[in-house]
Every structure is written in C-alpha cells, then in structure tokens.
C-alpha cells in the first residue's frame, strides 16, 4: 500500500506513513486544530492528542485510480467555527499533498473526533 510514481528513471514509492505525516502536518498547521486524534476510538483513548510520530494512527489513506482518498481525524478548539476550520483543513491537506508529494487527493474527509475546551 503505497503511492507509486513512475518517472523516466524508474519508480518512486511513497509509503502511506509518509503521506500520513504530511497530512497530519498540514492539518495541524491550521488555526483551530489543537491536534490529531486516533481513528480507533475504542482501542486508543479518544482524548489523546497524537504525537507527530503517531500521526498515521489518525490518518487513513485509500488508494484510488488516479490519486488517493484521505480521512483525517482531528481535535479542534472549542469556540472556533468548526465547519470553517474543517474546510481549511481540507484545502490545506490537498494543497500540501500536491506541492510536497505530487499526489492528488480526490477527497479529503475530515472527522472531528473531539473538541478541546482550553482554559481561559
């Protein structure tokens, strides 16, 4: 399971781990995202914010004919406009995949796993 890019010199394989890290980085870059969450609510504690090395646990990459479909699980900050933050995540993830890896995301599905109330 990896994205293959053919060039005149051979092939480039990009593992899903790498894609997940790029996706996680793009998502957490967005204002209002306090962190990445695990996609597996039962096994992992829902409210745990993933560390960078575990971003893959909060990202699902599905291979499609001409690109990938991404699911990304995030925790947002209470009091932000969650719909707009999610929309920003979608466009940033898509943009970063294309500019950094040359991978086209056909869809980016954002799952808001939690809302963090930050101490005022």
């Amino acid at each position: 399971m990896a994205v293959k890019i053919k060039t005149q010199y051979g092939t480039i394989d990009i593992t899903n781990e790498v894609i997940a890290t790029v996706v996680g980085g793009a998502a957490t870059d967005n204002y209002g995202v306090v962190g990445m969450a695990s996609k597996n609510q039962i096994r992992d504690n829902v409210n745990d914010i993933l560390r960078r090395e575990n971003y893959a646990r909060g990202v699902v990459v599905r291979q499609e004919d001409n690109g990938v479909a991404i699911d990304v699980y995030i925790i947002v900050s209470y009091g932000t406009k969650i719909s707009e933050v999610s929309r920003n995540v979608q466009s940033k993830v898509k943009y970063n995949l294309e500019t950094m890896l040359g991978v086209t995301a056909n869809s980016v599905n954002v799952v808001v796993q939690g809302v963090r109330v930050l101490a005022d």
Partner: protein
Amino acid sequence: MKVTEITNLEFGKMVQAASQKLNQNADFINSLNVFPVPDGDTGTNMSLSLASGAKYERDADTAAVGALAVALAKGLLMGARGNSGVILSQIFRGFSRKLADKTTLTAQDLADGFAAGAETAYKAVMKPTEGTILTVVREGAQAGLNAAKDTDDVLVVMDAVRKAAADALATTPDLLPVLKQVGVVDSGGQGLSFVLEAFDDSLNGRVAENADYKPDDAEMDEMINAAHHQSAQGKLDPASIKYGYCTEIMVRIGRGKQVDHKFDYDTFYNYLADLGDSLLVVNDDEIVKVHVHTEHPGKVIAWGQEFGDLAKVKVDNMRMQQETIMEKDDETPATATPAVAEPAEDTPDTAIIAIVAGDGLATLFKSLGVTHVVQGGQTMNPSTQDIVDAINASKAKRAIVLPNNKNIFLAAEQAAKVADIPTVIVHAKTVSQGMTAMLGYNPDAELTDNQASMEDNLSTVKSGQVTHAIRDTQLDGFDIKEGNYMGIVDGTIQVTAADLLETAVDTVKAMLDDDSEIVTIIYGADANADLADQLQQRVTDLDGDLETEVHEGDQPVYPFLISVE
C-alpha cells in the same frame, strides 16, 4: 484631548469603522498573496467575517459595551470564513469574554481586552506561526498593557496598540521566509492592522461622520435585488411595466470633458427621481453609482455625464426579462413537486458541464460536445450552488462536470453529491486537460466508463499557461519581475521573460518532447489573433512536423493557454 472611557456609542463606531475599512481594503489585502498569480482571498474572507460581526453588534439591543463585544464575537464566529476569519473571531472571543460584564471600558479594560484576545488566539492552535496575524495581535496587546500602566487615557492606549501592531506587521517578512522571498507583509496581519487602525482613527474622531450612510457594492446589489423583487412581483404582464429599462451607471465625479455641474447629491437625485422609479443613488468623493428603472436610459446616461465621465453603463430591457421572471416564480413554491416534463427536443441525455472563463473558450468547449458552460476560472470560482443549478437546469438524465481548475474540484464534488441526477467529475486541472478529456467521451457509454476514459486522457496532454507577474518575486528558482510574463507548465513556472511572445515560445519549447504531435494555442483577452499567428509561426519553425491549432478563448488572466499532445 483626553478620553477616559469608551461607551456603547464609541464602541459601535469603532466596530463599524473597522468593518468599512476592511471592506474598502479587501482587494489590497487579497493582493498580498504569496503566489504571483492573482487569486488570493484573505481580504475577502476577513472583510466578510467582520461584516457579520459588525451586523450582530449593530443589531444588539443593549447599551453595555461588554454585551456589544459579546454580540460582535458571536457574529464573527457565525460568519467566520477562511483561516484569517477564524483567527479574527478568536481574538474578539477572548476580548469579549474578558470584558463581558463591563458597561463602559477604561484604558486598562481596553488593554486587558486586547491581551485576552491575543491569549485566546494563541491557545486555539497547536504550533503558532510567528510572522502572521498572531504576531501582530500579540505585539499590539503587549504595547497596550505597557501604556495602560502610566495613563488612564484610552486614546494613548489605542494609539500604542495601533503603532505596535503596525511595527509588528512590518517585521513579518523577517519572521516568515516566504514573505521575504515574495516581498510582501503577511496578508492576515495586514487585515488586523487595518482593524486596529480604524479603531484608533474612530476613537480619535478622524473618521468622517457618516451622516449619509453609504452602502458598499454588496449592499448596493442587495438593494437592487430587493428593488427588483418589489417591482417585479412576477405577476405583471410584460406590457404593463411602466418603466421598461433597468439602468445602472457609474460616474467618476468631475472627470471627463462634458462636466458642467459640480456634484450635489440632491440636485443629482431629484432630476433622476422624475425619470423613473426604484431609484438608488450611492456616492463617495470620487464615484457615484445609480440604479433606476426608466423609459429613458439615454437621459440617465446624459445626466451622469454632466457630472463626470462614465465608468460603467448597464441597461436591461425588463419587459423581455419579465417572461423569465414569471417562469421562475412559477417554480419557487417549495411544496410544488416538479412536473415530469417531456424532455424538449434538444435536451441531452447526458449533460456535460464545463467551467471556463471567457466567451471564446465557451464556444470552443461547446464545439467539442460540451452541453452547458458555467462561467468561472482562476479568480472567480463558481460556488457549489452555481454548479448544482447548472446540473439541475440541464434537465438531463445524468451529468459530467469538467472543472478545468484544481480550485473548483471541491465545489464540483459537493455539487455532484447533492445534484438531482447522477453526476461524475472528470478531474481536469486545466483548460487543456478539459479539452483533451472531451476526446475520450462516448455518448453511448455508461457514465462511469466515460469518466474513466476521459480521466485516462488527462495525462496525455501537457498544459501550459502564460500569465503576467503582479509583483517582483522569486519562485521555483526564477527571479520574476513585476509586469514580466511567466510560462507555467503543469503547475510549475518554467520560463520568465519581459516579452509576451518570447515567453510563450519558450513555454512551448519547455513542453515539447520527441512524442509531441499537436500544439493548440488559445489566446486570451490580453493577447490577439496577430500575436497568436506569430506564435504559431514560431512553433512551426521549431519543428515542421508539428500540427498547430489556434483558437480565440477570451479568457482573462492568461494571454495564452497552450496544450501539447
């Protein structure tokens, strides 16, 4: 002058002034985008977000500043758009929570409010990026706190906040390399700086009192729509319309050769009032806009010219439009189930909807078999709703959408989900890809098979775009000068030169390889047939075996679009 407290009056003026200032400067903020192709929207997003905040503040029924601030924050939250809008809403969320129970604000309150706003803004993000709006709010708030230690004058505090924010904005290029590379300050930071500037000017009484409130473009449009709605009523016999021409003009006051009156609102208005109804007149020092329904559009235009030169004129025959309005009105009742109409002779089973900018491109796509065109492109992406409307209006059994632009994929995907008929998207990123995709279309094939074969065609074409740089920048290893041309091949800048033709020739060179057979040149609004013919000649000189085609596209922004297959 010394002011020791801000009451609901001052606060209301501050907020409205800031909203107006962002609205006036939205285009400028948009232009600070860090990619030299003009398509930024930070200014638009911030302006719309604050407009929503300002509306909630205006409508709040209270005299306590704290409650007004809460209303402002609520409106910002509801109307937040884009990253910058979300951050702006957070700043005022912090501000309003800190001051929620205040009736008026002292200098210390104001400083505390900004400090709380900065704190809240920083909290809602995992890794705050310095060199952005966050830096601007933090530095401004810090300066406010420092000033409040020594004074109880709100003007002194607000002046300090404004100045520190402006200074911080100036340092953003030192904190974010990409800004320095392009030579701009951060767009979101610039937006916030405008807001604080407007607050300060308003408190100091430097904002002209808007005794006669002047609506902006969007509000003017809403007013016009409302006026039309009231006058149309949809039940009129076209023949019974009293004033048949919807006439809009925009006049640059005092310019041009025919000016023989100094502009005076009442004089100007009263003459027009006798010419028709639904009259709206809006002006500032430089421009006056008029909307009126009249039988004498010529008189309206001539009257405008007595005060200045014409920047824009639009005349619509409403008797002709009336029939369509009546049709529309028949459709509006939400409870009515759409009658199953016999498809008209020319209703296609499969609608192919292409999104393009420019009449020439529209014609070109139709010649390739596209059935419907939605106008849109680099700088004006159609909304999901526009695409859904086009799909549903086609009355076809199924639809294929060609976005022809990466930025429209999302809207198109959404549209496909909610459209009344099965719809697929063919992911053409450029006009060139869109045209090539049409070659893979088979009217007798299944929808998904068509999608697959059309998408397969996308990779067979190279897309070149020639456009002008709107500022000096360094990108993809190129030193690009404002006003020079760039050649972009499949999304990366490959060539840059001062001359349009040379840039276009070099772009083609960069696209050619041993397998190239056909070069298609589509010239836009900023080029002409002559230039296109020269380019065609030069391409033929490069390689006599190449087939070349030239089309008129009328597209904005890109003087040349080039495909190589």
